[in-house]
Structures are given as C-alpha cells and as structure tokens.
C-alpha cells in the first residue's frame, strides 16, 4: 500500500497558550528586575544626581571617586569585619545546636522552634529589644555583669564595641537557619557508616563525630557558610534602627552606605556604583553557592 503523501493535518497545540502563561512573569521580570539592574549599572557610569541635570557619561570616573571615598572604604572594612564575625560564629552555633538537638528524642520540635524563633522575629522590632537589653541603664546584660562585679560599657555607643554588638545580634538572628540546614544534613548521615565504626570498636561520640558526621556534613557546611555570608552582607535593619551608621561611622555597612548616598546625600551615581560592586560580590558568592549545591546533589 503506498504511503500516504498527504501531510497530516496537525491539530494546533495552541502556541499562544504557553506564551500567555509566561507573559506576566516575563513582563514583571523585565520591568522589576532587569530594567532596574540595567538602570543602576548605567547610572554608575554617569555623573547623575537625583534631581540634578541630565546625566553625562563619565566612564569609570564614578568608580574611581567611590574607591577613594573614605566613607566607602570604611563601609567595606566594616562590612568585611561584620561578615568575618558573624559567619563563622553562626555556622558553629548552628552546628552545635543541631548536633545537640539531633540526639534528643523528645523535645526536638520544641527546641527547634525556640532556636529558630529569632530568625522569624521581625528584626526591626527585635533591634529595639536588643537595644534595651544592652543598654547600660536598662539592660539585663549590663545588670548581670554589674552583679558579677564587672563594669559594663555602653557598647552600642562605643565605636570599638558597636560593630561586634551588632554582629552578636546578627548571629542571634541568623543561627536558626544554619541549625535547620545542619539538622537536615544530619538526617541523611548513612547509618551503615555509623554501624561500621561501632563494629570497629570506635563507637564513641567523638569518633563518630570526627569520622562520620563531620565529613558527611562538609558540603552542608560549605553551603551554610556561603548562605550566611550572603545574608550577613545584607545587614541593614539593625544599623538603621539602632546605630544609624555610628557611632563615628563604626557601623557604617555597605547597604547603609548605599542608602545614605542615595537618599540622604543624593549622590545617586556613587550609590549606583557602590550597588554595582555590591551586586558583584553577592553574585560571586551565589555562584559559589550554586556550584556547591550541584556538587552536593551529585554525591
């Protein structure tokens, strides 16, 4: 029988359908994210100030000005110090709490809830609470220290102690996430390895920890480090509520610097340039995170 040469009349899978479903998302992505991204990148290469005249292209001049700006340098330094204080501590605390909680049969849910609470609590509101907690006149911490015989300083007003104080609040706020991720990782520790080690006669807690648990948690740890770093970089709420960049710029962090430049000083192009650099750093970290996630999944 000769093959039919007629083209099959295809029923038309409406091409319109999928594109209609994509349209709102695509439109919004472009308008709300891609356009602003382009805008901020473009502004960084001009001399534009909000409310000023039309922008002029100035090449890398703005970046040069930015890098030489003292406040910017302070902000970079402060942010780096902040991240350096928060990330290791958050990771360690998260790990420690997770290890402790994982062993508890009952009460796990309760502990999980309590230790994650700070991550859910509105940081702006909790910043006020922390301010009270640390305040030498009203706070519990200074009072306890006084009882113990120490003389507490006014940390939040002290240029040397302000950033560490904010770091402590940051750790308090972020450790919950680290704990959750570690808890999830601990659930996947392969039982056979634990049993094998016990059979080898080295079933003590420390051995188990060292030989099985921690190596298994290595990818999760890297993930937590990167995740915490990205979050720590974005510190803003505590600065905005408690210290407002002070005292003496001790807590001037990246986002607060940008905020000030953009909305107080109206040096829009500088703010834009700083934003570009900020995005670059976060982008680099996020790529590391994606890479680690891929590695972790292929295990």
């Amino acid at each position, binding site marked *: 029988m000769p093959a039919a040469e007629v083209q099959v009349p295809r029923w038309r899978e409406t091409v319109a359908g999928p594109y209609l479903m994509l349209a709102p998302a695509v439109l919004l992505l472009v308008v709300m994210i891609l356009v*602003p991204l382009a805008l901020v990148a473009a502004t960084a290469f001009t001399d534009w100030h909000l409310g000023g005249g039309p922008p002029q292209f100035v090449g890398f001049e703005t970046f040069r000005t930015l890098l030489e700006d003292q406040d910017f340098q302070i902000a970079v330094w402060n942010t780096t110090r902040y991240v350096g204080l928060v990330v290791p501590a958050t990771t360690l605390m998260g790990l420690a709490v997770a290890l402790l909680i994982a062993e508890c049969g009952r009460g796990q849910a309760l502990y999980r809830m309590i230790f994650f609470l700070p991550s859910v609590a509105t940081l702006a*509101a909790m910043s006020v609470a922390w301010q009270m907690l640390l305040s030498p006149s009203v706070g519990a911490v200074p009072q306890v220290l006084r009882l113990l015989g120490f003389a507490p300083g006014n940390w939040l007003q002290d240029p040397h102690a302000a950033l560490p104080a904010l770091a402590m609040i940051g750790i308090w706020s972020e450790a919950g996430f680290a704990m959750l991720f570690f808890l999830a990782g601990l659930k996947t520790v392969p039982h056979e390895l634990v049993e094998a080690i016990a059979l080898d006669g080295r079933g003590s807690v420390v051995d188990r920890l060292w030989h099985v648990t921690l190596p298994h948690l290595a990818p999760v740890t890297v993930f937590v480090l990167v995740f915490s770093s990205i979050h720590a970089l974005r510190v803003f709420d505590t600065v905005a509520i408690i210290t407002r960049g002070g005292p003496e710029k001790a807590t001037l962090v990246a986002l607060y610097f940008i905020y000030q430049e953009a909305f107080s000083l109206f040096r829009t192009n500088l*703010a834009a340039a700083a934003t570009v650099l900020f995005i670059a750093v976060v982008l680099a970290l996020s790529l590391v995170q994606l890479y680690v996630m891929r590695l972790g999944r292929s295990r």
Partner: protein
Amino acid sequence: MTSARFARLARHFVLVGGAVLVLLPLLWAIRISFLPAEDVFSPQFRLLPSRWIGFENYARALTASPLLHFLANGVLVCVAIIVCQLLVAIPCAYVLAKARVPGLRLIWLAVLVALVVPPAALALPLFIMAAQAGLIDTYAGLILPWTVSPLGIFLLRQAFLRVPDEMIEAARLDGLGEGEILVRLLVPMISPAIGALVIISLVSHWNDLLWPSVVVTSGAKATPPFGVMLFQVQEIGSDYGPLLAGALMIAAPLLVLFVLAQRRFLDGMTWLGSK
C-alpha cells in the same frame, strides 16, 4: 548515673540554657513592657514590677501611634504580594517545566539572573522608577516590585518537574483542558512547594525594612518594621515601656503564626535549604 544518662542531662541542660539565652531579648522586652516608667530606670534589679500597671504601656503604644494601622498595612501588603506572586509564578513555572516551545532557555536564564540579584540592591533604581511613575508612598509602590518572585518560579519549576509527564498526558486523554489540568490537578499536587513559598515570602516581606523605608514617606502607608522606625522618632521613642510594648505588638503576629504553625514553617524552610 550511667554515662548515657549523664550525657542526656548535660545535653538538655545546655539546650535549655541556650534556649533561655536565645529568648532573652524577647523575654526582656516583655518584662520592660509591663514596667511602669519609674521602674525602667531604677538602678536596682527587680524581677517583678513595683506596681502592676497591666497593659497600660500597650494601650499607650496603641494610642500614641497608628500601630494597628501599621499591622493592617502589613497584612494588606503581604497578602497582596503573595497572591500576586502565586498568580504570576505558577503558570510561568509550569511552562518552564513542561512546555516545549522556543525561548524557554532565555527566560530561564533571566530567572536565574534575577534570583542572584539581592533585592536590596534594586532599591535605588526602583525608587527612581517609582518616583517617575508617581508610586511613591502608595500601596502599589510597596507591592509591585515584589509581585514576581524568581525564587518562587525556581521552586515551583522544581516541583513541576517532579510531576511525571504521563499524568498530564493521561489528563489530556481524559479530555481536560490545559487550564483545568494546571489548576485542578497540578496545583494540588505541588501544594508543599506552594506552602513553602508562601511562608518564605510572608516572613521575608513582613520583616522587610529597606524597601518600605525607601518608598514610604508618611505614616499612612507604613508597614510594621517601618512603623518601628517611626516609633523611635516620635515621642514614644523615649518612653521605653510603651516603645517595647509597641515593638512586641509588631513582632507578635509572625511569632504567633510561627508558634502555631511551626511544623509547616520549619518543614518549608528546611525544604528550601535542601533544594
């Protein structure tokens, strides 16, 4: 006492101690919110207030500033954002996961780029755009930038990918229309992912301080965190009792929700982390 017993006790001891420390800011704030003004600054440490003032501080917080209004704004804005995010992300994620039309790779790339950009970095250009569009100090200005959630699209696409194609084909053979398949079959099937997204979005946008403080200029449109900022500059800012009462009331809704639905919360957050 056996070493296992001892270890267990020690563990609980440490955890309970840690729990108290972790809750300390909250507990301290609660304490101060029930203190009369004279007690707040008293140099002696007393656990209990010298006189019981009941909810006086709370009442003052409510009258001295439009706190309930802030909370209402928070609810309005968050609900609007979440609804919009779902309406936008669900169809988009479905197409990205299941359709075979040209251009999807480009769009997916755009989603990934958007995923990586920190929202705070867009505050400046979004502000400029909002100013041009006359959306400063409006609900639209608070809501619109967040109606598309790259994370949401990412998560939902993952979830859709896990639905076997055969199920969709069976539904087509049964005679269901594409929209019906999506809404009545697929959305219920990916409800854990949707739940996780709702929670993540809720927490993130209720607690957001940066964008509201950029786009809102008057108290009328303030969301809860920005409301806290406004407290500080008002008279109430020096009155610690009511100040903390106000701050607590602002943090309370999410905390209560969290305590009530903590299973959902934590499972959602863990789920996010494992992806």
